[in-house]
């Protein structure tokens, strides 16, 4: 295989810059720390959920609005069989508990000086390698069992995606309210 070295400089800069912002934000949320992630999993501190749910709600409103006016040409949904998503999520969850990080926050941990996650990323490289080893035997299954893949909630239930955005917004407001109470209780 012949390889080119770089993508276009403008794209490279855009990728570097957006990655920079993402890493900066993750670090400022302190999800670059073992204690923050595992406190979430022990249901003692909900920083991780606060970040994820708010990102989903704001991103959801932004994406579906800009799609409606044509600025975002199409959605970019990941594709995998439903079963693989469940199985992968389960394995990923165990990994998240054991490592104390997910892949993005592990990179931030390294940048913040947590050397253990350098070993963690080496483990990730081997994990990808192992998936690659078994990938040829998965490929036929990947093609055949794709029914929920690349579908939005709206498409699956044949209603407007905006209905789900509205539900998400309400759910988010309820979450924020519950968190206010939870954090007050925690402080004593």
């Amino acid at each position: 295989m012949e390889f080119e070295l770089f993508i276009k400089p403008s794209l490279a800069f855009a990728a570097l810059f957006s990655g920079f912002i993402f890493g900066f934000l993750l670090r400022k949320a302190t999800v670059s720390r073992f204690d923050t992630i595992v406190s979430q999993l022990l249901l003692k501190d909900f920083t991780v959920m606060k970040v994820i749910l708010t990102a989903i709600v704001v991103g959801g409103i932004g994406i579906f609005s800009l799609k409606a006016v044509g600025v975002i040409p199409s959605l970019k949904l990941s594709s995998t069989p439903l079963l693989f998503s469940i199985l992968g999520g389960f394995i990923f969850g165990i990994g998240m508990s054991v490592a104390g990080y997910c892949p993005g926050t592990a990179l931030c941990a390294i940048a913040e000086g947590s050397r253990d996650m350098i070993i963690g990323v080496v483990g990730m490289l081997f994990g990808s390698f192992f998936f690659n080893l078994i990938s040829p035997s998965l490929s036929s299954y990947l093609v055949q069992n794709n029914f929920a893949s690349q579908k939005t909630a709206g498409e699956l239930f044949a209603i407007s995606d905006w209905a789900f955005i509205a539900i998400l917004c309400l759910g988010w407001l309820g979450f924020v309210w519950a968190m206010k109470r939870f954090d007050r209780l925690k402080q004593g």
Partner: protein
Amino acid sequence: MEYFRKDRWSPYLVGALIGGLLTVLMTMGYTIGVSSGIARVSALLHQAVAPVQEGSYFDRLLSDHVIFNWKIFFITGILLGAFVASKLTTEEIPKKNTIWENAFGTAKWKRNFAAFIGGFLLLFGARLANGCTSGHAISGGAQLSIISWVFMLALFASAIPVAFLLYQKKGGNNGI
């Protein structure tokens, strides 16, 4: 500017800004994703040592025939951004691994071992599901992708019990 010196920003603010970042990236045809970038590093290392097998996952991953592509620059950016955010912080930083140390002590090899095993499972699971916390939970979640929401539920359904199993009992003062 004072806010940039703080150790911790409001998680709601961070979440909203990440949602904004995702929206902007989608106008360019990209999403936020980390695990495929790490898998790509693994694929490039493989290709450097021996050609990847035809029809394999790595083969598909490298089909754009560029070494330093969008994903590689994106994860490099994450490292830089988190590094700069740390360096800007002037507030005192709390201890970062207290829950681990309460449960398993301060021996480095134990933490490194867990980091390796955890990392292995993270990327294996992420590649099976075709996304991780950023690609599935945030990018897919915001697009209302069914498999992404399923992934998120499965993630917490296993991560929470395992965390209680590993860190709760032995933790002493970790209790709720």
